[in-house]
């Protein structure tokens, strides 16, 4: 029962203050370039040579690669420590984000550690079934500097009882 606790929780069971470290990711030059080419083709994220002379003086990751990697780390973390994404309860989707800031550039070889903390459970019932879990999410680089932060509201299924 204890071992399964994280796997079997409703909205009501998720406490404000709960904190998780989703894990770390090291960004390669190739993934920075490939993400930019596919989704956000800014020159400072595509061409390492040209990027040397730009505003950032070298190749940097698209801000959205930094944030999309948060999503991937969260999904992977849930697969290991919770029921996983096939559990409808944990599959309610994000609704909105606030205060997203990219504070420092992320460059090839940088390693970010992603953290998550439940900060609020707004008093709302959505479509008679879902509650909102508001979390503060942060990413820190290998120097311990915060490079990204945001808050997100994610739907969690309320206990039907």
């Amino acid at each position, binding site marked *: 029962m204890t071992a399964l606790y994280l796997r079997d929780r409703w909205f009501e069971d998720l406490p404000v203050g709960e904190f998780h470290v989703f894990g770390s990711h090291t960004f390669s030059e190739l993934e920075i370039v490939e993400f930019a080419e*596919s*989704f*956000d*083709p*800014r020159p*400072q994220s595509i061409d390492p040579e040209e990027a040397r002379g730009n*505003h*950032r003086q070298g190749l*940097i990751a*698209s*801000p*959205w690669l930094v*944030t*999309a*990697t948060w*999503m*991937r780390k969260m*999904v992977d973390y849930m697969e290991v420590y919770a029921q996983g*994404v*096939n559990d*409808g309860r944990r*599959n*309610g*989707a*994000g*609704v*909105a*984000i*606030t*205060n*997203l*800031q*990219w*504070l420092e550039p992320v460059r090839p070889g940088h390693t970010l550690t992603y953290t998550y903390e439940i900060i609020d459970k707004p008093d709302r019932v959505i479509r008679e079934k879902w509650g909102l879990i508001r979390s503060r999410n942060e990413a820190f680089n290998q120097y311990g500097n915060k490079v990204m932060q*945001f808050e997100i509201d994610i*739907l969690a299924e309320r206990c039907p009882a």
Partner: protein
Amino acid sequence: MPLTSELITLDKAAIVAFASQFDPQPYHLDNEAAEQSIFGGLCASGWHIAALATRLVSETLIESGLPFVEMVSVGHLKWTRPTFVDEQISVRVTLTDILHESPIAETYVQAFDVEVCNGDGAVVAVMGASAAIAQDSAGAATS
């Protein structure tokens, strides 16, 4: 008068490619699972929409003479409806405040509101954001 971008079509391959790498949840990967999900059909990751909207915003600002350098912050972003397979998105950008202090050298910060619309003109996401703009644009920082 908002600035308007071109349209991008999200086909299934594009939706699944993004989701496989960054948001591998059933409603972004598998038709059947998606039909049973909260969305009712296979749809794009919200982060995919955010990245593509940023691309459209950058292209739109550059075409309007504002040399977009980099996104700085997103004060708020709300996903209001899913974007399903083969739907299109475009952005409508309304410029708001100018901030002279920027975290990036030789830039200033332009704030703006964005509506991300599908091919029918329905809003799929709204965003208030700011981006660094190169100062070498003629007089843009004081406009």
